[in-house]
């Protein structure tokens, strides 16, 4: 199979990668860029474990060919938070116990972040719809809803939600 070079911005860094026309973006992220926070669940777009944000949109990276992401700006779970501090959504997931085995968590957090970006005060129904593309098989959804509500409250306070801790 022929090879080609693609260029993308991933978690703020420009990367050039050699790939093939039929490599999935998911495999490029995991195997070539070694960003293994993005998981493979079903490989058919139904479970959301491979969710990333591409050009501002929530997508399943198992259903995208690597060359389709040429020129794209991508955020994976490794790009959430600043390396030192967790993102308020991540903190909320830990505090409410919304992480058990953790396999769905990267996709869940990206879906939650995207939801709160578009809709800072979602209702429970809107939360359910926002993460409807992400399956969890062990934590249970209630704690995930609680985490998203907590994050929404934190984010709506002016200091970005670190008020309680820093005080």
């Amino acid at each position: 199979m022929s090879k080609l070079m693609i260029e993308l911005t991933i978690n703020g860094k420009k990367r050039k990668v050699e790939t093939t026309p039929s490599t999935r973006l998911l495999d490029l992220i995991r195997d070539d860029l070694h960003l293994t926070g993005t998981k493979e669940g079903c490989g058919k777009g139904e479970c959301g474990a491979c969710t990333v944000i591409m050009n501002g949109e929530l997508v399943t990276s198992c259903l995208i060919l690597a060359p389709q992401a040429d020129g794209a700006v991508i955020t994976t779970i490794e790009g959430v938070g600043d390396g030192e501090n967790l993102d308020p959504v991540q903190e909320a997931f830990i505090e409410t116990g919304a992480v058990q085995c953790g396999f769905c968590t990267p996709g869940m957090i990206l879906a939650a972040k995207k939801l709160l970006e578009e809709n800072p005060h979602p209702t429970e129904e809107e939360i359910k719809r926002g993460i409807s593309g992400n399956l969890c098989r062990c934590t249970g959804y209630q704690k995930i809803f609680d985490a998203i509500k907590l994050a929404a409250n934190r984010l709506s306070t002016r200091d970005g939600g670190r008020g309680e801790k820093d005080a």
Partner: protein
Amino acid sequence: MHQRTVPCQGYFAPQKIEKALEIFSRYREEIKVIAGGTDLLIQYYDRLYEVGTWLDLKNIKELKEIKIHQNQMEIGAMVTHTQLEKSEDIKKYFPILSQAAADIGSPQIRNRGTIGGNIINASPAGDLLAPLMAYDAQFKLLSVQKEALISAEEFFIGPKKTILEPAQLLTGIILPLPSERTFGCWIKIGKRKALIIATITLALVVEMAEDNKTVKDVRTCLGSVAPTPIEVKEVREKMIGKNFNHLDFNQLGQIVEDKISPIDDIRGTREYRKDVAKNIMINALEEIDSAWRSHK
């Protein structure tokens, strides 16, 4: 957005339709056209290596536009379900197309999947197909040699089968703008809300005459009840020219039940689908009844 086109033997992403058609006619069966990939990449999940060459339509800007000229709307084939769901023009003129798009898959799928892909995939359960038929859609098919306009009804010939010829591209969907007195209802039945293939879908569109009580036109289109999306035309003779107040909703529901011939499959039995078809037809008529009354 910065968009580059990588020249590569196995992957083409041209910026112009003409160029795409030229590549398509050169490679024909050797090339796979890819839009959102949400159906195609599942079909090729464990045999991606079989695809020699891809023709990606992502860089063709005009295929992502929703345009109104005179009394028609043209929706580009690469318009995503998210765009259909959120477009103010679609919500205004073709509300049930917007609602059907909102019921597809998940946020991730709606952000990638396209109207053109939903049509070309030609699943009997394709969520947009019954609404498109109900709004009298025509599909614009282009090849190097010719341009053709085909009605939704003629386009689908079987499960996953269409009249699309080799090296022909679906570039747009043409919809006549409906009158202000047009009312629609969309109902999708499935085992869960997200990421479900429909057990049955109904798109009912009723146009009232100028007196605002006589039915001028009606289209009753269903998905997942036949090898292709279908219209139950027998409903027309019972409704057109009649006063909406005098319609027998139960009888109309019975006609839908009697005229469809669904199969048993993992999503539901023939009997269940016939039963549900009748009931959702009655529900849709009731919904249109109340929308029409509050509009008067």
